[in-house]
């Protein structure tokens, strides 16, 4: 449900016509402050951003949430948010609308705890959520804590923007305040659990206070970062909540190339469907478990599961092939994952020769250095014979009970992989055209045509297919067998043509992009269905 509200909604069109001439570029939202509010609250907030002057209303895609735009300047919106008591906690999204178009969606949060605004003398009494902005570079917010001996607290900071990375530091009075009676000593520090692509950079501290007394908690920006968009909320909870797993969430878009996608019983069915085949209902792969005794026998399709719970542990399965097969090897890490657990899977033939691995070896551009990358999927050909499949961690020093692996060996299935669409909104101008491009990963020799449609366009907007100028890249001489480890990406483009004289939009419309494979002359089930907010806006003066 889309809600549109604003002080100017009655005379929207008149004002819009006037302000449209003033807009310069696409409006961008960067952060909200306060970042979090409790259910049942009505409060005012500011949104930092760029090109915001002239925006007149907000759109919130959430039941029980109302947002009203109070005023707008070039770099700030003043808004009012009203939350019904029944609004569930969690992340919410918000966009703003104006004559210059629709903004990106920005995140903010509804929290169950009482909230407060950051101020210098604030005492943190859990449960509490504190909202603040580190407006200046180098700014630090310091809060006081009064704890009982044996009390445990959990602190979590969430930033409003990926560009702002908060850091938490817990301080205690220095036992020996020799240099200054006001001296405080660092007790604990947390930036993020582990800095690694795909993992959260939000800090989280759990501390058991051995002694009662005053403590301090500081929040600052990594490397002294600060600015109007450095908005955060700090949650203080009693007790030691279990830490979230060091495990990235599976990507929102369907993707086969992630160590954390689930190789469930229907995985093969999903692959067939992604290939446009709705009928094939493959049986689930047989499952075998790693054993300390003789290597279990793996059939195709089959899943080999186990754990590397000791350093330098090696898990093996045997494999017998009666005929040559084009195979795909997929690896899932259901619990710990990269960079702690880095599963290396290798297939050896009966002579001990390596015939396949999920490690892609290549040379760097000048050919001087060998580079190795670990992948969650690889494809290869196996000829008839006996093989051993081996799983181990890349390091010899690390092994843990949560180093769990799931290896699927299956015949190759031609299918469409991930479909990615970079644009999250379309602000079009009359008389102009704009190319909408998305990318399709062709997996395992998937060759079928793919069709894309954009439905629900407003009057005056037409869509045309575009043939992209293919990017001509010279073959990489040092690339190794890169085709085994990466899909074949293909870009598709649609041209959105807006006729001269098309009326400007007062509100966005939501045309839907649908991408489907074409199988045996018929459109198959969609690979992607995505509504895209679209507005017709006046051209930039």
């Amino acid at each position, binding site marked *: 449900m889309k809600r549109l509200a604003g002080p100017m909604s009655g005379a929207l069109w008149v004002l819009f016509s006037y302000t449209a001439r003033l807009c310069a570029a696409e409006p961008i939202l960067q952060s909200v402050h306060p970042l979090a509010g409790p259910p049942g609250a009505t409060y005012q907030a500011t949104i930092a951003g760029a090109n915001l002057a002239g925006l007149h209303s907000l759109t919130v895609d959430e039941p029980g949430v109302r947002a009203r735009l109070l005023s707008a300047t070039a770099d700030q919106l003043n808004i009012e948010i009203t939350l019904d008591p029944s609004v569930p906690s969690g992340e919410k999204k918000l966009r703003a609308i104006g004559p210059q178009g629709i903004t990106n969606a920005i995140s903010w949060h509804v929290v169950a705890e009482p909230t407060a605004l950051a101020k210098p003398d604030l005492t943190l009494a859990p449960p509490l959520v504190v909202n603040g902005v580190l407006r*200046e*570079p*180098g*700014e*630090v917010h310091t809060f006081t804590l009064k704890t009982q001996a044996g009390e445990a607290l959990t602190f979590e900071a969430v930033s409003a923007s990926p560009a702002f990375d908060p850091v938490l530091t817990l301080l205690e009075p*220095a*036992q*020996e305040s*020799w*240099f*200054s009676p006001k*001296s*405080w*000593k*660092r007790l604990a*520090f947390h*930036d993020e659990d*582990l*800095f*690694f*692509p795909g993992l959260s950079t939000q800090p989280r501290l759990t501390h058991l206070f051995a002694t009662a007394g005053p403590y301090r908690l500081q929040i*600052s*920006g*990594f*490397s*002294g*970062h*600060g*600015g109007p968009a450095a908005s955060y909320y700090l949650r203080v909870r009693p007790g030691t909540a279990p830490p979230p797993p060091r495990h990235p969430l599976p990507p929102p878009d369907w993707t086969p190339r992630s160590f954390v996608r689930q190789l469930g019983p229907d995985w093969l069915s999903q692959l067939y469907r992604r290939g446009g085949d709705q009928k094939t209902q493959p049986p689930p792969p047989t499952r075998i478990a790693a054993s300390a005794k003789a290597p279990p026998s793996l059939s195709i399709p089959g899943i080999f599961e186990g754990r590397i719970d000791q350093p*330098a542990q*090696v898990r093996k399965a045997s494999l017998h092939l009666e005929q040559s097969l084009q195979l795909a090897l997929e690896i899932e890490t259901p619990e710990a994952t*990269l*960079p*702690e657990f*880095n599963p*290396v899977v*290798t297939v050896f033939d009966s002579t001990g*020769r*390596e*015939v*396949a*691995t999920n*490690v892609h*070896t*290549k040379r760097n551009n000048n050919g001087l*250095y*060998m*580079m*190795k*990358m*670990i992948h969650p999927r690889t494809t*290869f050909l196996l000829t008839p014979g006996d093989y051993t499949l081996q799983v181990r961690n*890349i*390091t*010899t*020093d*690390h092994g843990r009970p949560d180093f769990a692996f799931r290896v699927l060996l299956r015949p190759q299935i031609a299918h469409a992989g991930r479909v990615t669409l970079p644009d999250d909104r379309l602000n079009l101008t009359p008389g102009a055209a704009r190319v909408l491009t998305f990318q399709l990963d062709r997996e395992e020799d998937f060759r079928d045509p793919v069709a894309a449609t954009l439905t629900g366009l407003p009057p005056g907007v037409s869509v045309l297919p575009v043939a992209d100028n293919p990017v001509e890249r010279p073959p990489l001489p040092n690339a*190794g*067998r890169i085709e085994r480890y990466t899909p074949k990406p293909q870009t598709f483009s649609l041209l959105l043509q807006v006729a001269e004289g098309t009326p400007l939009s007062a509100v966005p419309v939501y045309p839907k992009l649908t991408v489907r494979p074409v199988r045996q002359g018929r459109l198959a089930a969609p690979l992607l269905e995505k509504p895209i907010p679209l507005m017709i806006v006046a051209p930039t003066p």
Partner: protein
Amino acid sequence: MKLLLPLLLTAAALAADPVAVRLVPAQFELHRPGASQQLLLIAEYADGSTQDLTDAATWSANAPAGLVTAGGTPGPLPVTATHGRFRASATGRLETAPGPAVFRFRSAIGPILTRRGCNSPACHGGVKGRGGLKLSAASLFPRDDYDWIVQGGEYQVLSAESRTPRTPRVDLRNPNASLLLRKATGTVSHGGGPRFAVDSLDYRTILDWIRQGAPFGPPDDDASRITAIEVFPKILTLEKNRKHRLLVTAVLANGRREDLTAQALYLTNDRQIATVADSGLVAPVALGETSILVRAAGQAAAVIVGVIGDPVAHYPPIATNNFIDEHVFDKLRRLRILPSGLSSDAEFLRRVCLDLTGTLPPPGRATAFVNSRDPQKRQRVIEALIATPEFTDYWTFRFQDLFRVALFANGINPKWSQMYGEWIRESIARNKPYDRMAWERLTAQGYDGPTRHFLPYDVIGTPEETMAEEVRVFFGRRLECAQCHNHPYETWSQDQFWGLAAFFGRLFKMGDTGNEYVIFDHPLHEGMGNAEVNGRIETLHPRTKAKLVPTLLDGRSVPPSDQENPRKALASWMVQHPYFAEAAVNRLWAEFFGRGLVDPVDDFRSTNPATHPELLSRLAAEFRRGGHDLRALMRLIVNSRTYQLSAATNPTNRADRANYSHALPRPLLAEVLLDAIGQVTGVPERFTTTIAPDGKITQQTPTGTRAIHLREPDLFHSRFLELYGRPNRLALPERSGKANLGQALHMLAGSIYNEKLTAPASRLQTLLRAQTTDGAILEDLYLTALGRLPEAAEREQLLTALATQPDRNQAWKDLYWAVLCSREFAENH
């Protein structure tokens, strides 16, 4: 308190007879025909000094001039020497039957090449040899030397093959025409000039050898391999008019000892202080200290020689706090140097605060400390300082320097340098044993903090560079020279270098985006490739092209295993090796004294001896015994009287720079100096990391961030810190404390020395606004900056001068500036 010297000594007493004489060595054995042993008669005096009486003594018949040569039937070989009323004896034993001496190239020809300087690093013992002939330094590898002489050929650094056709340097048919002899005697042109005469003993020895067919002799077995040489005495104190012989002894792998005195090459480091004859006789030239380098059988050692002056007439008893003082004061007494008195309380407090925490003492603390009558106040303040957060901050900074925490040194990712820096900080805060820190750094795998130090410039460092850095950090030794050739000044061979480097030969990173590198040791037997792509790695010896096997310096190889981190064996060996503790204590010692017992701190070598070898050994032993506890070691050092001596000198120790007879003023480290200026002015520095194109600062350190808190010097730019010697940590830091023109200009016109004084929130402006009296401001300035009150004369002169100035604010600003620019402020003394 113990008294080191219970006696008051006088010059008259020193001139008296010795209290005892003894023969060195007191026991010896001769194991082969032709072997010999030189003995020295040493007189010992009441003040601990010694004198060589060998030439003045009367020797038993079997030891003319103290030299015993194998002969006769096996059995005891008692030797006596008499000097005046003193008589000393040594117990010798002949362990070999009579017979001709077995010829060995190593013991017959090698020493000639050494003594005549042929195989010195400046000549044929250099990297590539000289004039086509390559010899191993000091005949470390006699087999190689033999081959190059007898077979001929020209050495190549990167290949084991000869560069030119092989022409022997000996002529077996016409021995007198051998190039080896003709070059050495100058009969033909020789760049090194004549090394010996045609009729000399060395000439005849070589000629006889060639006439006999130039044999190599029986190969040395492992047991008879020379593992080290020892020189007596290790430290020689020499009165102005006396000479002293050196005695050189080879230590064999089987534990036996052989006299090499006559086969060694002796070189003095400073002819202006002492000279040394080919026989090893040391003669004084002028007062001072130097060292004498001794090279023999491929090994090298050094002797510290102190030429001492007249005895101190009334050398007082010197109190000692711990064994450090016993070692230091004992040497000072032998050198006839009087240590300075104990530092004043104010001097001590400022020094120990800066050394332990990098922070000036607050004025109130300084006053209270000086006024305290607690006899234990120094020990108490040391404990208090070690418990402060500033201590953790400061030593985190020092070890981040040593371990090279920097943006570019740690994968060009500030998150990674933070991970690495946090590992150091936690280690310091928890007082992690230093051997554990070293072990974790050396063996790091995966994605933890210490793994990031393997990623300089975002790539895995080469095995040789990585190994050389670890050896330099944890062993205090520089092996880099041995990378391309056998080390010219040490016994490190190219094989040893590459054997050690091989421990890092499989170090690899997984990932290619620059944000995800996981460090691991590449399997040896797996390529992690496939039939088409060979992903295997191997490390080859650059000269022989042989596959390298990880081998410790002691020769033990560690068989590679795909299931084992090879660096674990290396780390376990390193942290238990004597070098490790020695290097660690020496490095910390230098932090407190401005120079190491071995100096530079990471240049341990036989030719750069410790000023106090026994003290170094004892400190290392205590460090090991105490579980490699850094805080305990610091506590030991700063509690010593030696550390607490005054910087004020006396006539006997004014010239002393290496024996710790007085505190040496040391320039404050750039970061500490900047923090101190901020402390005195009350205006802390702000450090900026990122400036947007529009000039807007987007990243800046929080107010109160000290320079010692900055993790990455290459991220937080500061003109002041660069001028005052902050290293960028892209290589192992070597800070220079030398003044430069840039510093002078910065003092005159730089923001640090000027703007901070006029800032409205500055300490000075606050005091002036509060109508504080000149006397009170002066006291505050002195206490804050110098840790002391102004002396009466200083106070009077300065207050008078201030009173005459028309502009009080400007006058005070000038005085503050002058104090900040003074050496007393900018140095730790």
